[in-house]
C-alpha cells in the first residue's frame, strides 16, 4: 500500500534532553512537492535531516525507494545524498573559496565526472536558472538570491530524485524569495523531482502540493495526498 518514494515510520530523535522528534510517520510520493511547516523548534529541520539520511534517527525507519537508510553506513549514505538527493540550505552554504561554477560542478567532480564535462554541465544549469552571468564569481560577491540560484543548480546538477530544501528563502526578501521558489518548483516539476521544503512561511508552502505541519516533534496535521 505504501507507494511513497520516502516512507518514515515512528521517527524519534533526541539531542541530549531535547526531544526533537517524538514519533513521526509520513509518506512522500514520487514527484510530489511537500512542505514541512510548523513553528520554530518544532523539529522541522531535524525531520528533514532524518528523511535525507544526514542524521540517523534514534528510533524508527526511513525507507527511500525501498532502501532502509538506517542499514546503510555513513559512506553509503553520503553516496546516496550525493547521487539521489539534492540540498538547498537557508544561506546556500556554498563553499566560499570556490567560484559559483565550481560549486555547482563539485558534486559531479566528486562523483568522478571529468572536470571539463562537469563544468560544462554546471554552466548549463546556471544558465537555465538565470545565473550564468555570475558563474565566475565567488559566493562572497553574490546576492542572497544569486547564492540560492547557485545552490539550486548545485542541487539539481546531479539529476537527483529528491531535493530537500531547508528554509530556502529564509534569508531573502519576498521578491527574491518568490523568484527562488518559482525557479525551484519549475525545474523540479519539469524533471519530475520530488521536492521537500522546510519552511515557516505560508507563501513558500503555497508553492507545494501538500503541507505537513510539525508541532512539538510530531505531525500535527497533514493534508490528504492528492
Amino acid at each position, binding site marked *: 500500500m505504501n507507494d511513497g518514494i520516502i516512507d518514515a515510520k515512528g521517527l524519534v530523535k533526541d539531542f541530549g534532553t531535547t526531544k526533537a522528534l517524538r514519533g513521526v510517520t509520513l509518506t512522500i510520493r514520487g514527484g510530489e512537492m511537500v512542505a514541512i511547516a510548523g513553528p520554530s523548534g518544532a523539529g522541522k529541520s531535524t525531520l528533514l535531516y532524518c528523511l535525507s539520511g544526514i542524521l540517523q534517527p534514534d528510533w524508527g525507519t526511513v525507507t527511500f525507494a525501498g532502501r532502509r537508510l538506517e542499514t546503510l553506513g*555513513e559512506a553509503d549514505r*553520503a553516496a546516496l545524498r550525493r547521487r539521489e538527493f539534492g540540498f538547498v540550505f537557508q544561506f546556500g552554504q556554498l*563553499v566560499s*573559496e570556490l567560484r559559483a561554477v565550481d560549486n555547482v560542478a*563539485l558534486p559531479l567532480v566528486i562523483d568522478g565526472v571529468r572536470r571539463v564535462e562537469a563544468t560544462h554541465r554546471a554552466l548549463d544549469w546556471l544558465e537555465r536558472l538565470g545565473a550564468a552571468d555570475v558563474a565566475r564569481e565567488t559566493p562572497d560577491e553574490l546576492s542572497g538570491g544569486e547564492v540560492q540560484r547557485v545552490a539550486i543548480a548545485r542541487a539539481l546538477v546531479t539529476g537527483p530524485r529528491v531535493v530537500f530544501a*531547508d528554509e530556502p528563502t529564509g534569508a531573502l526578501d519576498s521578491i527574491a524569495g518568490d523568484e527562488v521558489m518559482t525557479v525551484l518548483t519549475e525545474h523540479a516539476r519539469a524533471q519530475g523531482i520530488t521536492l521537500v521544503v522546510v519552511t515557516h512561511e505560508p507563501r513558500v508552502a503555497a508553492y507545494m502540493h501538500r503541507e505537513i505541519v510539525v508541532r512539538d516533534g510530531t505531525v500535527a496535521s497533514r493534508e490528504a495526498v492528492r
Partner: protein
Amino acid sequence: MTRLAVRLALRGGRSGLVRVGLIAIALAAGSAMLIVGSWVLTAGVARTDRVETRRGGPLASVDMLLHRAQGVPLNSVTSGRPFVIWSKTSLSAPRARTITAFGIAPSGTDAPRPPGVRAIPKPGTALASPALRALVDSREGASLRAALPAPIVGTVGNELLRDPRELVVVTGYDIDTLQRIDPGAYLLESFHPRHTINSLLFVVPITVLATLVLLLPLLVFVGSAARVGARRREERLATMRLIGATPGQARLVAAVETGIAGIIGMAAGIALALATRAWLVAHRTYAPGELPTSGTRLLALALVVPLLSAISAPLALRRIGMSPLGVDTRRHRRSVSPWRWWLLALGWTLFVAGALLATRGDTGGWRTSASPLLLTGGVVGVALGLIGAGPWLVQQGAQLVERRAARPSSLLAAARLSEDPRAGFRPVTVLVVTVFVATMLLVLIPAARRSPTASQAWPWTQDVTARPDLQVTWNPIRADAALAVAAARDRLARVQGVEAIAPLHAGTLSPRTGDVPIPWPGTDGHVVVADCTTFAALVHGSSRDCRPGVLTAVASGYRAGDSLTLGPSLSLTVAGQLPLLDRAGVLALVPGSFAPPQLRDLHDVSTLWLRTDGSRATALRVQAAILAVAPGSTLEPGRTLQYRSIWITTTRWLLYTVLLVVLSLAACSLAVTVVDQIFDRRRSLATLRAVGTPLSLLRRATMLEVGAPLVAATVLGAVNGSVMGFVFTRLNGNSLAVPWLDVLALPVFIAAAWLAVSAIGLAALGRAAPPVPLRAT
C-alpha cells in the same frame, strides 16, 4: 580595562586556558633555549681561547729542532727573558680516550706559568686534571698510573682544560730532557692565545643566525597560539565593541593574555635552563664556571621572548577585523602582489656583492669587514624574502591547479589556497626559514663521520680539518722510527678494515730554515707534499686524476698550476689549495717513496694515519697488530688536527639540537594553525559533508592543503639554502663533502611532521565538521 583583560584571559573558558598554556610552554622553551644557547656560545668561545692559550704564545713558532741543529743557545732567543719549554703529546687511555700530555720545563723560578697551574711541577712529578685523577683512582684506570710519565702530585685547574671531562697531565722536566723527548717542543715566553675568535666575523653572524632561527618559530608559534579560539573570543569582544569598546582595547586583551603567559613562561624558562645547567654540570659536560648564573643576565635573556611575543600576538590578531557586528576573518580573494619578491632579490644582491668582495682576496682593510656583513645581511634578507615570496608562489601554483584540477580534493585544496595564500603559507613560515638555514649549514658543515678526512669548512674562517680514523704515534720518538714505521705500515696494510694508511712526517718547513728555498707567502706557511693516492686517502675530494706515484703538492696561498720549488733538484706543480692547519705550519705529509734529502733530514716519520671502516673491531685488530710490530707506540682515535673543529663539532651538535627543537616548534604551530583553521571553516565543511561529500575526500583535501605549502616551503628553502651554502664553500675554495644523509633527513623529518600534523588535523576534522549543516553562529 586591563583588569577585565586579565579576567578574560584566566576565566575565558577552556580555549582561553589552552591558549595561555600553549603560549607559556612555547615561551618557556624559547627562553630556556636562548639562555642555554648563550651559555654554550660563551663557553665555546672561552674553550677555544683556552685551547689556543695552551698552544703557546707569539714565540711558539720558534722551533726546537732548528735551534738544536744550529746550536743556538736558548737564552739568546729570548734575550735573557724567562721562558718555558712546552710540549704537547698524547697518551692512550681506556675506552679509546686520549690523555693530553703536556711537558713543561721552566728556565727558572720566574718562568711563565700556564693558566690553571699554580706551581710548575718539579722534574719527575706531574699534575693531573680532576677527571684524570678520578680515572687513575678508579679500578678501570689503575693500570694507567704506571703509564703516566711521572707520579701525580697535584691538580690542574679548569683554566687549562677545554672541558671538565678532559684528561690532562702536565709533567715537569728539565730543559734538556724535554727537548730530547719532544724535539718539536715550543719555547714560550708567555701563554696567550695565538688566535682569538674574531667576534665581528664569527660571533655576530652566528648570533644573528641563531636568533633568527630560534626566535622566529617561537614568535610564529606564539602568534598561532594566540589565534586559537580567537573567533569565539573575538565574538565576545565584538559584543563589547557594540557597547563602545575600541579595537585597541580588544588588542589589549590579547596582549595582556600573552603577558600573563609570558610571566609564567619566563619563570618556567629560567627554571628549565637552570635544570639543564644542573644536568650539564652533573655530567661534567661543562664546568660550573663556564655557565654563569648572574641574575640580570638570566632575566634579560628570559625577557626577550615574552616581550617580543607580546608584540607578535596582537599583530597576529590584526588580521582578524573586529567590527561591532562580529568577527570578519577577512576572507576575500585578494591577489598577492609579485612585488613580494623584492626582499628576496635584495638579499641575493647583498649576498652576491659580499661574495664578490670576498673573492677579491684577503688583503684586509674594509673589505674584510664589509664582506661578512654583506653576506650576513644577504642571508637574513633572503630568509625574510622567502617568507614574503612564499605566498605568491603558493597562489600561482594553486591558481594553476584550481583551473586544471581533475580531482575534487585537489580542486578544494587549490581553491582554498588560491583564495587566501597568506593563510595557507602562514603555518609553514617557520619551516621555510628553518629549511633555508638548515640546508645552508648542512652544506657548510659536512658531517665528517663517514668521510674520514673530509675537509670541513666553516664560513668566515680559512681553516680546514683533516681527520683520520686512527692515529698511531711512536712516543718517545725512537732512533729507529723509520724502520718501525715501515714495518708497521706493511703489517697494518694487511689488517682487515684498514682502507688507507698515510705516514705523517712531523716537522717544520719554514723560510727561516734557509736551506729549503720554498717561496712562502707571507711570513710563515706550510706545504703538504704527498703521493697522490696517499693524499687522496687523507683529503677528501682530491682524488680526481690521481695516479699512484704522482707527487702532489698542496700549499696555502697558491693556486692550482703554480710551480713550487722544494729544493735545488725538486720542483712540483701545485695540485690544489689546501689551507691546512694553522699558519705557523708544522706539518708535512710525505709519501714513503718520496724523500727529498732535505725533507728526510728534517722530518722523522713518527705517526701513521689510518683510514678504516670505522668499526670498533677494526680498531682492536689494529691495536693487536701494533703491539706485535711496534711496541712502545700508542694508538689513538684520529685526532682532528684543527682547533676550529672543536667549534664545528660543538656547532654541529648545537645545530642539530636547535634544528630538532625548531622543527618541532614549527610542527606544533603548524598543527595548532591547521586545527584552528578547520574549526574556523567548520560550517562550510559540515555542509559539504551534508550534501554527500565523503569524509575521506575532505581528509585528502586537507592533507593537500597543508602539504602543498609545505612542499613549496621545503623546496624554496632548500634551493636557496643549498645554493648559498655552496657559494660559501666556493668562497673558501674548499672541496666539500655534502652529508647527503643529513640533508635527506630533513625532508624525511618534514614529511613525518606533515603526516603527524595532518593526522591531528584530520582527527579534528571529523569532530569539527559533523555531516549536519551548522546554523550560523
